[in-house]
Every structure is written in structure tokens, then in C-alpha cells.
């Protein structure tokens, strides 16, 4: 018995010494390093105030190097020199676990495996720093964390608002998992703020290219033609307005329905003739034709050669049917203004023409160059 008591004199102090040493070992254990972490800020522009279009959200992905029991907190701490910039106003934040994010790197530790587990309901607050303290986002009511699992949590403004610092460049964020207020796992990371994170794309949508064509009258009366007499004329205008790169006018007639275009009475044809032009001022030339006036002085509208009105009495001839359509007026280029052109018809009846009503249906085709 005496021997046992004697031994206990040494065993008890020694045991206490061992326990103290063990305690020292535990208390001097360094915090671990997070295996993986990223902070996905929704905006990287400096000096965002956290409201409206300047609202800032973040997704935190975090993988601890060791298992952490339920009840831990996660802190995101910002540099001391940037107090009140990140926590633009203190207060509760909106927080929820997320199971993935667009930043995830597949098949790596930087890919969120699961939403941050809860112990009750996740809560987050933004607290503003001052001298010696820092802006801090604290997430609490966290469930147990497993090492090797990357958890995701999204944080956005609530009564507290998240902004950005006013200085472009690198900023250090310290991310830590804490138990009883003591960090057990942490990592300092950097993010980069830019003066402007936005590219503004502006576009002009033009009108659909179009051409507007008008004919001032659908009938022209040439009056009475006397067989072998002088030629008669009649006119109307055509108008063109377009947003395309140009326009054209073409014409064709119907004539007697078989041989040629021209004025047709049902029995007699005052034909437009096989030649390109008719000089109806000539005593021996008869027929039907037309001219157009140049619609502008500066724009490049052009009356085709056979239909210019520069020689009195001379008219261009037309042909039958769509297949015989002739280009009479065109413009290659954007139109500056609406451009009317006067169409003048000229007709002269041959000496053998029978009395009667003569008619020609002249079809106008108008279109745009696109």
C-alpha cells in the first residue's frame, strides 16, 4: 500500500503534466488551409453602391481540409482599408445554399458538390469595419461539413447591402470557417476590381428597305388623231420614293395582242414599231411611243437613252408583254428625295388608219435595288 501511494506521488503529477502538454499541443494547433475556394461576384466594377442596377451578389464555393462539426460560421473578411465599401450598409443579408454555379470547374475541387448544409436556417449578416476591424460577411447556422466536399452558398442584399471598393486592382479576401469564434480552416484569396466591367452595345435598326411607286393618272387621252396628220401627246407623272440602294421603272404594252404594242382600235394598230425610237416629227413616220423627264438634277437617276425627252417629237418605242418590257428609268444609289418624272406619250396615225377608238394599255413595273 505504501508503495502504491509512493508511486501515485509521481503518477498523478506526471499525468497532469501530460494533460497540460496535450492541451498546449491542441491550443497551438494552426488553422488549416481551405482545400478550395472561390468567390463569384456578380459585378467587378469599382465603387458599386449595392442598390438597384449596382446591386452585388456573390456565390461562395468552399471545401474545408478537415471535417467541421455543425454550428460553425463562415466569415468573408475584407481589407481594413476598405471599411464600409463592401458592407455598404450593415444588416441581415439574403442567403441560401446553391448546388452549382456557372464558375464551377468540372471534375475538380472547384465544382460545387452540394448546397451549404444548414443547422436550422442559414443566416448571414454584413458588419461594417472601422479602425482595427474589417467589413465582414458572416454566415451562421451551418450544418456539419465534410472534408473533400465543396459547398455552395449565395449571398445577396437584404437590409444590409453589398457593394464594392472604390479602387481598381487586387483585393484580398480572407475566407474562414470558425468554430467557437476560432478559425479552423481559412484561405486568403484575391479578386480584381476594374474601373468598368460593362460593354454597352448600341444598334440602329434601319427601316426595311422599300420602294414606293406612284402613277398620277391611270388614263391619258391623246385627243383626236388624224390619219397622216401631226402627232399628239398626253402625259402623267410617276413618282418614286425608296430606302433601298436604287430603283427602276420598266414598261410594256399590249397592242393588238399579237404583233406589236401600240394603239389598237380592234381592227387597226398604230404600232410602236420595230425601231428603238420614232421621230414623229418626220412626215413619213407614224406610230406610238413615250418619253420620260429626268427626275433630278443631282441624284443619279437616269432615263434610258431611247426614252429621253430632249428631242421634241422623238419617242422611244415599247414592246408587248412582260417579256418585252423595256427599262425606261433607273437610279443606282440611295435616293435623296422623292423624284417625280413626267411620262409623255406621243402618237401619230398612219394615213390608212380607220376611224375609231384606239387604246393601249401600258404597264409600269417599279422596283428597288437592295
Amino acid at each position, binding site marked *: 500500500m505504501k508503495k502504491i501511494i509512493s*508511486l501515485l506521488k509521481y503518477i498523478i503529477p506526471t499525468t497532469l503534466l501530460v494533460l497540460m502538454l496535450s492541451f498546449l499541443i491542441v491550443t497551438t494547433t494552426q488553422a488549416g488551409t481551405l482545400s478550395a475556394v472561390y468567390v463569384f461576384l456578380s459585378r467587378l466594377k469599382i465603387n458599386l453602391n449595392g442598390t438597384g442596377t449596382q446591386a452585388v451578389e456573390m456565390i461562395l464555393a468552399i471545401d474545408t481540409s478537415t471535417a467541421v462539426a455543425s454550428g460553425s460560421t463562415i466569415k468573408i473578411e475584407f481589407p481594413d482599408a476598405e471599411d464600409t465599401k463592401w458592407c455598404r450598409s450593415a444588416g441581415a443579408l439574403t442567403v441560401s445554399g446553391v448546388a452549382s454555379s456557372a464558375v464551377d470547374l468540372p471534375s475538380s475541387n472547384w465544382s460545387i458538390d452540394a448546397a451549404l448544409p444548414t443547422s436550422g436556417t442559414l443566416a448571414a449578416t454584413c458588419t461594417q469595419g472601422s479602425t482595427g476591424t474589417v467589413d465582414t460577411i458572416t454566415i451562421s447556422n451551418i450544418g456539419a461539413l465534410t472534408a473533400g466536399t465543396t459547398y455552395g452558398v449565395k449571398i445577396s442584399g437584404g437590409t444590409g447591402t453589398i457593394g464594392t471598393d472604390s479602387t481598381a486592382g487586387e483585393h*484580398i479576401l480572407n475566407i474562414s470557417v470558425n468554430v467557437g469564434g476560432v478559425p479552423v480552416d481559412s484561405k486568403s484569396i484575391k479578386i480584381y476590381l476594374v474601373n468598368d466591367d460593362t460593354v454597352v452595345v448600341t444598334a440602329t435598326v434601319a427601316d426595311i428597305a422599300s420602294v414606293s411607286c406612284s402613277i398620277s393618272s391611270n388614263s391619258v387621252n391623246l385627243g383626236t388623231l388624224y390619219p397622216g396628220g401631226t402627232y399628239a401627246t398626253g402625259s402623267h407623272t410617276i413618282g418614286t420614293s425608296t430606302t433601298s440602294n436604287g430603283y427602276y421603272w420598266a414598261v410594256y404594252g399590249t397592242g393588238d395582242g399579237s404583233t406589236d404594242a401600240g394603239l389598237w382600235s380592234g381592227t387597226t394598230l398604230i404600232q410602236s414599231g420595230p425601231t428603238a425610237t420614232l421621230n414623229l416629227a418626220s412626215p413619213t413616220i407614224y406610230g406610238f411611243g413615250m418619253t420620260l423627264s429626268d427626275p433630278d438634277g443631282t441624284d443619279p437617276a437616269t432615263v434610258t437613252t431611247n426614252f429621253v425627252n430632249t428631242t421634241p417629237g422623238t419617242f422611244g418605242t415599247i414592246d408587248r408583254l412582260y417579256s418585252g418590257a423595256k427599262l425606261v428609268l433607273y437610279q443606282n444609289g440611295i435616293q435623296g428625295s422623292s423624284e417625280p418624272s413626267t411620262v409623255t406619250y406621243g402618237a401619230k396615225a398612219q394615213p390608212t388608219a380607220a376611224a375609231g377608238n384606239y387604246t393601249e394599255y401600258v404597264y409600269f413595273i417599279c422596283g428597288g435595288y437592295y
Partner: protein
Amino acid sequence: MRIKNVIKKITAVLIILLPLSVSATELNSPNYKIVGVTTNTGGVTQTLDGDYSALLEAGRVSNNPRNYSSTYKLYTSPEDAFIASVPSVSCFETTTSGHSDCTTGPEELSSGGMVAICGPSGCYDRARFEIGTSSNPADTLYGVMISTDNFVSDIRYVDGNTFWPESVSTHNLNDFHTKTDWEDPDFNILGLQSSTTYYIKLFALHGDFTQSDAGPAAFATTSSGSVFFDIDIEDSSGISAETNPPYGISFTGDYRLIPGSTPTTAEDRIWMDARTNSQGGFAILTRGLNGGLKSNTTGQTIVSATADLNTAPDGFGIQSEYINQDTYPYLGTITAMSDYSGTGNSVGIVGTTATKVYESSKPVFNGRMALKVIAKAGTDKVAAADYQESIYFVLIPRF
């Protein structure tokens, strides 16, 4: 009798403290056996009985550098002849650039330093050391102590399996490796904190009860991490262009959108610079304010979508045109996500939720990228000059 009691007491104390001791397992014979011991010169086999006479070399000069200097030499006991020589740290590096004292790592390390294998500014969470063997045999095992305060109160070891720092309580014989095994990984210390100075010491073990004292400390400071991001607007020739905000792209004049016409590519490109040493590389993401080109005048939106605008009646998006980075085979390369890497008039969406446009899975030096902006107005779009979208870009490093 008193002596007997003292012995009992000492024995009791040792029994209690014994679990704290670290013992080598190479004592693997019921008889005395020393594995791999080199006795240096002087050991001879006796001609008569064949016994080895190394233990007779009491009094020879120790080759342990702790025991001699230029002014003295310490003769050692026979047991000390078996203790491994104290090793040294021949290199311990985190942020070297353009040079390295490490000789057995990857070629990029030897020529470019740690920045060549960790990225800009070097390593923030890892390091490499190499062992000066002090003439220990090749099968000598080494352990690594690590500290952030030069071993004043922070004394840890490097785990031989994970290469992360571990506490004294988990340190064991599995944390000993040969020089070759320690130096085979490119990084043989992981799990470090950034912007932190670490001190390491090495000790050697060459058979049971032969662990040397720790060698001289070497130190290195980890990088604080690095990341850079920048946007520039310039035409397709602007590989090296640097421009200031505000950043704008326009479809006007000759580039105006004509409803029903073929897709139009804006003259300017969105250029971006990116670099980081984050081990998980980075992701560049985009999102739009409106989800398309919106006109407040007409109330219409040319909606953004991932589509081939040659066949889509209407749309708006971006397409990667250029990717480049400095060539460091050990580091990462930038890739465009499939939606944004099309050709012709195939574009990726700029929606109201963020989508990844570019990515690297490793650190990158001097990344440069360019995006085309392509739009097509459908025949239902009413003419107006105020179609607009604000595109946000973010670069997220993964540490």
C-alpha cells in the same frame, strides 16, 4: 534501497510518457539488427571470428557536422557512428522567378523558377524543397519540420502522405521518405497559407534510433496570390490595344441592322486580358442587362440566344475570335466554351443570367481574348436608333 526506489519512479514516469515518444519500426528483429548502416571507413571483418569490428572504432572523428568545426573535433561514442548525418535544405522555394536553386524538379522550374510552374507571382499555397544529404546513403529517410515562427511555438511536420502540414500529434514514421521520394512530386509541401513565411528543417533517419538532429532552417514566403483582368475595345487587329472605359460597341452607319438582312458583325471586338496564379485557373462569365438589344422607343428586343444567325430569323450574341497566352507548358491554356466557339455567324447567348465564356483549369500568364459581337434584326423589328444592351464581364479566379 533508495537507488531501487529511484529506478522504480523513473520507470513509472517513462511508462506514462512512453506513448508520446516516436519510435522507429525498423527494429524488426527480436535480435539486434540495424538496417542499412554505413560505417564509413574503418570497419573491418575480423579474420578469426568473422565479426564486424565497426564498434571498435570508438574515438574516430564523427562526420556529423554538429561535432566539428574548423577549430575543434569531437570524438564520439560508438553509438553515434550510426546516427545519420544532419541533412540540409538545398532549396526551399515558393516565388522564385527566372532562376531556381532546385535541381531535381521539372525543367520549367529550373529555367523559370517557381513562377513557371505556379503562375504569376509564384505559389501561394505550395512549395518545393530539396534535400542536401550530407553524404547520407541513398536509402536514408528524411522528415520535415515546418513552422511559421521559426519553431518558437509553431512546430509542425509535413505529412508524408498528403504533404500538408500536420501537428506533432499525428506525426509518425510514415512521414519519412527518401530524398528521391520527397523530390519526386513537383510540389512537396501543400496546404500553405498565402503571404506567409514558412521555415523548414530536415532531419534524417537511417535505421532505428539513428535519427539525426534537425538541420539548419530554411525559409520561404508564399505569394499573396495574383489576378488581373482588363477590357479593351478595338477592331480585329487590336491584339495589343489598350483602351480606357467607357467601353462601347456599335451597330450604326454601315454596320446598322437592316431587318431581314444577313447578320452583321460589329467592327470592333471586345478584347480581354487575364492572368492569375490560382490553382483552379479562372472563369470569365458574361450576362446582359436586358437579355438582348432592347429599344425603349419601340419596346422591342432583339433577343440574345445561342444560335446560328444565318438560319435564325433574329438574334444577338458573341463569338470568340482570338485566344492566346504565354507558353508555359506546365501552366494552363484558355479555352472558349462551346457555345461561344462557333464559326460563321454562330453566337453564344448574353442572357440575364451569367454564363461562362472562357475558362482555364490552371494558372495562366498573359491571357488575351477577343469576342465578336454579331446581331441580326428580324423583319418584325421596327426601325429605331436606341437598341441597346449592357454586357457585364467578370473574371473569377479559383484558389
